[in-house]
């Protein structure tokens, strides 16, 4: 009996022993900061003075009156719409093209994935020079095709597009790779059976390939939303949110409020709003996916 109790207790204790490092780290650097953000969003503080004063909802009220906030919010969603559909579509198209080849697949995969592994800070500076109005390679190429390119990074109508193009350049290789591995796992017998039943190329694509790829697509959409909302580095280095906040996004405004203007309460309020948006979108996606995604 004694032995039995000892055994049971060990079974409980051991798993927690293995979880201790992770749980401790999560407690200090995730749960506590997460709750702390909510508290800070109801306070007024400049990071330096010893006292934080209770401010009620004034940080949120200030944000709702702040034009920059609405601009950043709009740009956050615009950036998502500019990048994600193109990146996923390009990834799917390239994966289909590559998988139908008999030779050279590995070389293409290598080249298309190169931008994904490149250091993002280096990429940002490289593209900043590429977007130079007169001397940059982007406008040089456009001139070659007879197009007079804008002054990408200093033009309020072009700046967000400029960043989005870099975002697409950096991410479509990842989507291609995921789709290629998804295509590999599809049972080739399905296509043969469909061909015998008289299904053409298009109908095989629509009725077999796309449904079987839908779990991957869902994964990409969910992760794509989260990563596009976290797009800080490109904005910080390429445009600094400018000109005139035309390319400012929530995560960059948050950084400015906290570490340039030292209004911690306002920054925390942006964090809370960002969290609420991500939560809403993710749960909506999961709900939608139950009906739309095909699991084999």
């Amino acid at each position, binding site marked *: 009996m004694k032995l039995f109790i000892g055994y049971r207790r060990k*079974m409980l204790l*051991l*798993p*927690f022993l*293995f*979880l*201790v*490092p992770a749980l401790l*780290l999560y407690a*200090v*650097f*995730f749960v*506590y*900061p*997460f709750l*702390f*953000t909510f508290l800070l969003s109801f306070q007024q503080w400049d990071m330096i003075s010893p006292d934080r004063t209770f401010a009620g909802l004034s940080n949120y009220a200030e944000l709702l009156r702040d034009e920059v906030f609405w601009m950043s919010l709009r740009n956050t969603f615009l950036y998502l719409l500019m990048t994600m559909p193109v990146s996923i579509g390009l990834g799917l198209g390239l994966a289909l*093209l*590559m998988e*139908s*080849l*008999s030779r050279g697949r590995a070389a*293409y995969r*290598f*080249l298309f*994935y*190169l*931008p994904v*592994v*490149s*250091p*993002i800070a*280096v*990429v940002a*500076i*490289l593209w900043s020079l590429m977007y130079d109005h007169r*001397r940059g*390679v982007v406008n*040089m190429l456009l001139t070659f095709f007879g197009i007079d390119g804008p002054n990408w990074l200093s033009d309020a109508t072009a700046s967000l597009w400029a960043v989005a193009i870099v975002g697409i*350049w950096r991410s479509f*290789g990842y989507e291609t790779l995921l789709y290629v591995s*998804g295509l590999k796992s599809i049972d080739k017998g399905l296509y043969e059976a469909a061909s015998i039943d008289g299904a053409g190329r298009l109908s095989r694509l629509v009725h077999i390939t796309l449904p079987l790829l839908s*779990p*991957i697509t869902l994964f990409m959409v*969910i992760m794509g939303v*989260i990563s596009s909302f*976290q797009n*800080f*580095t490109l904005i910080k280095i390429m445009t600094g949110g400018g000109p005139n906040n035309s390319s400012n996004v929530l*995560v960059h405004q*948050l*950084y400015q409020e*906290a570490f340039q203007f030292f209004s911690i309460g306002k*920054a925390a309020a942006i*964090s809370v709003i*960002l969290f609420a948006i*991500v939560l809403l979108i*993710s749960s909506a996606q999961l709900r939608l996916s139950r009906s739309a995604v095909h*699991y*084999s």
Partner: protein
Amino acid sequence: MTRYWKSMEETIKHMLLVALALLTMVPIIWMASISLRSEEYVFSGHIVWTGPLHWEGYVKALTEVPFFRWLANSLRIGALQTLGQMFVGVCAAFAFAYYRFPGRDILFLFVLMTMMIPMQVTLVPTYLIVNQMNALNTLAGVVVPHLASGFAIFLLRQSFLGIPKELAEAAAMDGAGAFRVLWTVYVRMSGTMLWTLGVIAFLANFNEFNWPLLVLTDPDQMPLPLAFQYFRTETQMDWGATMAIAALSMVPVLALYLIAQRHIVDGFAQSGLKG
């Protein structure tokens, strides 16, 4: 006739892919091309440089700034953070995959949730904590807050679940303790996944910008991606040197990518994305 059309189709596809691959490579080709020109030809209008090669930019990048110190900082941060994430990840994944205990599923759901929340949501308080611990401008301040990685725990758990439990039970029968089971069965049998995760995590940690930007303000401590930014403001107009240091910063990453390409590609294929 059909064979003729088949090879025709393949050729057209190759042409399309080559064109797209070239377009994708333009930034990297251009970077290399600018870095090798002399000052007067930087703006000559050529995309690819065919004239004499000039290495002044590289000399400047290697001698005027502590490039190797920055590289060492990067490698140190990348290696330590990756090893730490793997250690924490292996332990937690083992607990989730091997044991049954109350609260297991809720805890795992929590781990998944941490992946869904943008790091910026907790950015300011995490900075305040690190500041309070007097860990700004230290290695620990950069590395420790991100040691618990939901991505690592998730991938390792998936891989551990694929290992037959009978093997672990047989080892336990033979008198192996929990640590032994973890080491001899689970870790030994997940070699590929561990390498894959290691490479992917290392690349991500090596390239990280946002968090080091806040924690490391001392140029001597900065990793390459951050120091590079600092370098640009110093040499605002020197495109050749800027492109040279950009190219140099890419070298370690490209080398690792070339060596470990298989791991990166296969890793995604088996990471359980099949739903």
